[in-house]
């Protein structure tokens, strides 16, 4: 299955070639075309990978350069990572379409798409990788491209400062994760996620005794440090309290489509990596794992930071005067809720978290993009001065309202069903404190969202000349907003239940993930034996 290995490499190749092509080709519209073609191709390929995995019923392993795990780097894609990768690629298609509207003939377009496709490559690499060190590489690919995009308006003091803060903290986070990878290697003897997961579960060591050949050191002693360092890094990437400081500065300073990518998609990488480490690799919530003793501690830590994030960010939403900053705080709130979901260690909890990742991504991308139109029309980010762009282009007004209502959790939108699943998970686990947190933060956030809805729908109309009015009614705007609007309405359990269940089960029970990694090694040995004549 080479397709999974091709996608990030394909995106990186396009990303690097764009600035080179710009030396000869000066028409920036060409770059819009190339970017949309690359985004659609990445989505189509990721959809094919997901379809393949679901039809096979097991994760796939792609050996980089033919080297087997645990000696070489592998991509290992299961139902969870395939779902998130496909959804990410899908959302980016519409963000690129919006970028065409937003940036127009801006001379920085080639560099912009070079970085944006780098972000997509990093995200898909994070979801697909089955190697702890390769995850570090992909996190860095993602981070460095994000720093560049936040500082896209390089003459803006705010953008440069925000990017510097993001980069400074991001470098520390990357370093801490690197140390975690070093400790993992020095104790487990390898960095393949499937093998480390096998070693964490004695049952697999019994059946596959050869994996002991690759292992040395005190693994239980190492795990405390590895888990602490990596969780710190992942909470930084996800923008969860108390590592959220950079987010309200960085997200508003970036161009609006990048704010949508950062708030809707990039933060999910932190949540996904946390789930992958805690559930699959160390099996903290798996009774077969030797680290199962840590489950109650992780439940406490994750639910506390998640709850504080949700309450703190919702309170901060109320006092914001900058529209994009308000939405950035809403991201912290929702990531907090996602963390409380998977802190439970139950099937419904994981399902709810993954579901909320999906609905939040669509809702947040749509809210940023539609509010961005109002910001463009009003020429200010100040909420009090936002103009009623909804009167000029009803789709924008409807998009702002629907995305806010979905994020609040009003029926029958996708956000409601994901929050409902969160409620179910909390009630099943007897965590009524988290039910109260969810209710409280959603209630306060509703007031925050109304601050944006009110001026955009009921404020004064913008004063625009004829050419500007045409700009705010372009087809590219409809093409980017309408599909995400439909997704928000369509993301109900009837459509996604089977996908979510598959993803949650593959997360909670890592048996297939481990078996496929080990099988890949056995297949390699068999291939070598056959090629050398037995």
């Amino acid at each position, binding site marked *: 299955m080479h397709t999974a290995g091709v996608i990030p490499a394909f995106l990186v190749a396009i990303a690097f070639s764009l600035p080179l092509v710009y030396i000869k080709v000066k028409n920036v519209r060409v770059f819009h075309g190339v970017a949309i073609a690359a985004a659609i191709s990445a989505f189509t390929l990721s959809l094919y990978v997901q379809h393949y995995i679901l039809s096979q019923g097991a994760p796939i392993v792609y050996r980089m350069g033919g080297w087997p795990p645990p000696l070489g780097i592998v991509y290992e894609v299961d139902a969870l990572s395939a779902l998130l990768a496909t959804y990410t690629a899908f959302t980016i298609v519409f963000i690129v379409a919006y970028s065409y509207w937003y940036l127009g003939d801006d001379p920085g377009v080639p560099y912009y798409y070079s970085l944006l496709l780098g972000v997509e490559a990093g995200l898909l690499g994070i979801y697909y990788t089955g190697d702890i060190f390769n995850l570090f590489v992909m996190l860095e690919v993602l981070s460095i491209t994000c720093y560049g995009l936040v500082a896209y308006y390089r003459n803006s003091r705010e953008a440069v400062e925000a990017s510097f803060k993001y980069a*400074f903290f991001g470098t520390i986070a990357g370093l801490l994760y690197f140390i975690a990878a070093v400790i993992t290697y020095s104790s487990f003897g390898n960095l393949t996620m499937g093998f480390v997961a096998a070693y964490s579960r004695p049952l697999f060591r019994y059946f596959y005794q050869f994996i002991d050949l690759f292992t040395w050191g005190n693994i239980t002693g190492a*795990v*405390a440090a590895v888990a602490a360092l990596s969780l710190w890094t992942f909470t930084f990437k996800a923008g969860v309290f108390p590592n959220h400081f950079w987010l309200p500065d960085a997200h508003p300073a970036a161009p609006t489509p990048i704010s949508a990518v950062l708030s809707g998609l990039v933060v999910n990488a932190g949540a996904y990596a946390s789930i992958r480490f805690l559930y699959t690799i160390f099996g903290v919530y798996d009774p077969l794992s030797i680290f199962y*003793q840590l489950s109650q*501690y992780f439940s406490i830590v994750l639910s506390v930071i998640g709850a504080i994030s949700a309450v*703190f960010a919702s309170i901060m939403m109320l006092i914001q005067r900058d529209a994009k900053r308000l939405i950035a705080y809403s991201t912290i709130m929702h990531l907090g809720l996602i963390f409380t979901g998977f802190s439970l260690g139950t099937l419904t909890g994981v399902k709810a978290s993954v579901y909320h990742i999906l609905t939040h991504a669509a809702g947040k991308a749509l809210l940023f993009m539609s509010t961005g139109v109002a910001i463009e029309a009003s020429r200010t980010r100040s909420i009090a001065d936002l103009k009623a762009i909804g009167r000029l282009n009803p789709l924008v007004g409807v998009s702002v309202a629907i995305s806010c209502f979905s994020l609040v959790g*009003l029926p029958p939108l996708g956000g409601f069903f994901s929050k*409902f699943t969160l409620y179910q998970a909390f009630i099943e686990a007897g965590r009524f404190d988290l039910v109260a947190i969810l*209710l409280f933060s959603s209630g306060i956030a509703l*007031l925050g969202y109304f601050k944006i809805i009110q001026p955009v729908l009921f404020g004064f109309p913008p004063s625009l000349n004829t050419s500007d009015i045409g700009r705010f009614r372009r087809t590219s705007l409809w093409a980017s907003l309408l599909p995400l609007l439909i997704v928000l309405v369509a993301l109900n359990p009837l459509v996604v239940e089977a996908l979510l269940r598959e993803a949650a089960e593959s997360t909670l029970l890592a048996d297939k993930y481990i078996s496929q990694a080990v099988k890949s090694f056995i297949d390699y040995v068999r291939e070598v034996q056959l090629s050398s004549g037995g």
Partner: protein
Amino acid sequence: MDALTLIGILTAVSIAVSVVIWLPVALKAKVRRTEMYLSGEPQVNFNLGITEVSWAVRRVFEKLYSVVLNYVQTGVFNDWFAISLPYLLILLALLTVAIIVGGGV
């Protein structure tokens, strides 16, 4: 309790929470906005519109926001480290204790 009833209750409670929070703010707070002036322009008093929520909330929950803005979300690097570093140390200590208590080391 069936799912539909639960949906209704949870949605209603969520909206009720926001109303309960908003009502005292809207009823109590009157915002006095003093524009920049040279000599004696009148100060303007006005009741709250929903877009003025940030003025009102800051005024009603003044202590809460002063703590948050002065000690947590300050925008100063040093203050961020003062919170993030203890978080890392707590994680390390907690998980090490967890491993030792569980007999892992």
